[in-house]
């Protein structure tokens, strides 16, 4: 009997407690779920195709940023997670993968891309779905009003800025009669435009702009004509393996004896794959070179993190962008105390950062990261190890004046 009463008593108390628990449970469970749900960052890059070496380095460096964030405790206990997808360097594939990342994997942000074309297609998908996209690849178009939205950010340099910096350094030094060898797609055209604009102010003369289809492996057929034009400077407006082939064959034809070869973007990975002889004396721009760690403390700190994570390897230029792109977004999450797109976008707009190469910020009107451009010259003598490939000959400091104006890009509000 007593046991029955006891049971009843317990039963009543249990019901009360149970009811109370039931009442608060959704809230508690909600918090628990939020704490367990990772902050998902979609990362579409061309893991296969011509730029796969650069893309894999982007992933490696982005993982460093994610690890760093998680080791510091994440955001309210939420850890970050990188969802890497192969966009195969194809704009259609990039759009499909990004759509899957947003609709199926429910990513909070997208960082990535490694071509002018894929980043525009990724941006279009993200913009329509109000998801922040921080592009880590060069493009001018992405800054323009027609492609832009509050959710579009551009961590990489753009061709206008890079080509301009290289032009300002190289043309006064090496001469003003120019021939361009240009990959016939958006990136190549944007680079030529950047060089021409900076060059015209200095009175340069364009002898020819020779355009070739992307992925050409033999440039020898263009070289006799270039030789006969006798330019002071041959500007290689191409990228990756195209550039390696073009410079290699130009070297074979003895063009270096009379002409300086410059390139808007001189890639670390292409230089390592191409070898010292081929690239000897070639001058170009880059967003980052690990060897600047002697001059820039942030570069040293970033290199050390990368070295520690990958057995002494050093990050490449595009790799470093993967790190900065992810780190900026995660920092903005902490600043905004939210993962909501608009709040994080506002935080990114306020962000002043120095992750790896000196002070940077996103210009308000187009979210272009205002940053320094590093001018390097490839070396073939006195190298300490296989990664010691460039001399940093000049650093053009971050300056908004070197970008196209907000009005020119079609943005109505310039602040």
């Amino acid at each position, binding site marked *: 009997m007593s046991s029955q009463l006891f049971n009843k008593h317990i039963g009543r108390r249990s019901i009360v407690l149970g009811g109370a628990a039931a009442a608060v449970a959704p809230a508690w469970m909600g918090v628990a779920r939020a704490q367990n749900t990772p902050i998902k960052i979609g990362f579409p890059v061309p893991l296969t195709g011509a730029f796969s070496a650069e893309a894999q380095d982007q992933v490696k460096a982005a993982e460093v940023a994610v690890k760093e964030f998680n080791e510091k405790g994440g955001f309210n206990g939420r850890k970050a997670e990188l969802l890497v997808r192969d966009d195969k360097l194809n704009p259609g594939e990039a759009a499909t993968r990004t759509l899957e990342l947003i609709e199926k994997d429910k990513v909070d942000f997208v960082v990535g891309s490694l071509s002018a074309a894929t980043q525009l297609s990724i941006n279009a998908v993200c913009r329509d779905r109000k998801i922040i996209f921080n592009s880590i690849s060069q493009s001018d178009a992405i800054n323009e009003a027609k492609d832009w939205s509050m959710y579009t950010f551009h961590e990489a340099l753009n061709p206008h800025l890079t080509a301009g910096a290289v032009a300002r350094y190289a043309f006064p030094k090496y001469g003003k009669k120019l021939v361009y060898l240009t990959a016939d797609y958006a990136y190549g055209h944007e680079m030529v435009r950047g060089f021409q604009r900076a060059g015209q102010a200095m009175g340069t003369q364009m002898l020819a702009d020779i355009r070739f289809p992307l992925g050409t492996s033999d440039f020898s057929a263009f070289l*006799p004509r270039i030789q006969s034009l006798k330019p002071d400077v041959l500007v290689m407006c191409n990228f990756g393996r195209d550039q390696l082939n073009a410079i290699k064959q130009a070297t*074979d034809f003895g063009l270096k004896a009379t002409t300086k070869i410059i390139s808007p973007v001189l890639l670390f990975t292409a230089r390592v794959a191409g070898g010292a002889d081929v690239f000897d004396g070639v001058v170009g721009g880059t967003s980052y070179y690990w060897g600047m760690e002697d001059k820039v403390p942030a570069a040293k700190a970033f290199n050390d993190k990368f070295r520690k994570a990958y057995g002494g390897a050093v990050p490449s230029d595009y790799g470093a962008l993967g790190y900065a792109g992810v780190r900026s977004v995660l920092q903005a999450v902490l600043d905004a105390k939210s993962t909501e797109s608009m709040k994080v976008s506002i935080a990114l707009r306020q962000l002043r950062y120095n992750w790896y190469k000196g002070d940077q910020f996103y210009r308000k009107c187009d979210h272009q990261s205002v940053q320094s451009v590093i001018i390097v010259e490839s070396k073939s003598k006195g190298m300490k190890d296989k990664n010691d490939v460039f001399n940093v000959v000049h650093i053009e400091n971050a300056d908004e004046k070197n970008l196209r104006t907000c009005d020119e890009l079609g943005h109505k509000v310039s602040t």
Partner: protein
Amino acid sequence: MLDISPQLFALQLMTGFALGAVYALLAIGLSLIFGMLTVVNFAHGAFFMVGAFLGVYSLGLTGNFWFSLLLVPLMTGAIGLVCEKFLVRPLYGRGIDYPLLLTFGLSYVMVDVVRFTFGIEGIPSSTPESLRGAVFLGFGHFPLYRLFLILATALIVIALWLFIEKTRYGLIIRAGSRDPEICKVLGIDISRVWLLVFGIGTAIAGLSGMLASPTRAVNPEMGIPILAESFVVTVVGGMGSLPGAVLAGLLVGVVFAMTSLIAPEFAELSIFVLMALVLLWRPQGFFGKAGLMS
């Protein structure tokens, strides 16, 4: 308009020949294998790539370009022999599609094996010391190595022609391609002949990869675009025809070079236009036999 001097024209022609030499070499191997075995070897570009990698490594290890020039075709030929014996052979007599699909798959495997072994970035390759620099040809300076490429191709073509036309083995190969049944009746082990032909074809592919390696970037995917161009050459020259492969190789090289001079944007396209025109005029190519593919 463009100011094209006779000197520039002559230099451009030479550049076209040097380019065509590599096409011709690759197409010879393709044509040899197709003409004798009726196998469309889609792994030919992969053998070209393997040849380039082995060439760079052999050159790095031995320091001797000429020795490597002998070693590399032997090695790629050996890989070819193994592939024929264990992969291609079971598919003879099953129509043209089976070996085509098999070699297509094989090319993916080979590219991935190289990616895993040597990395995806590719490796540096440079022109051998003794063949660097440019020579004056009377109308302008031309890279010595490219001149060497033209000569090497000519020598390989002549050697192959002598082997097939003038030796006993060549006679057996020719007989085998014409009528395998009669050869068997005469007591010739035809499977050994086919093994040898596949080996020679892949050896030449490897050799052309090694020869081309100083002039272009060496990476796991380098065989893919050149395979497409070699097929154009083979189709233009006539599937299975060796003189066709040589003539079409040089023609494609020259057409590419000349279009580059006048309208560089259309250079890549020009060789496919050439193929379309030749096919309209002669569906079997210059020296091909009609109905071989059916």
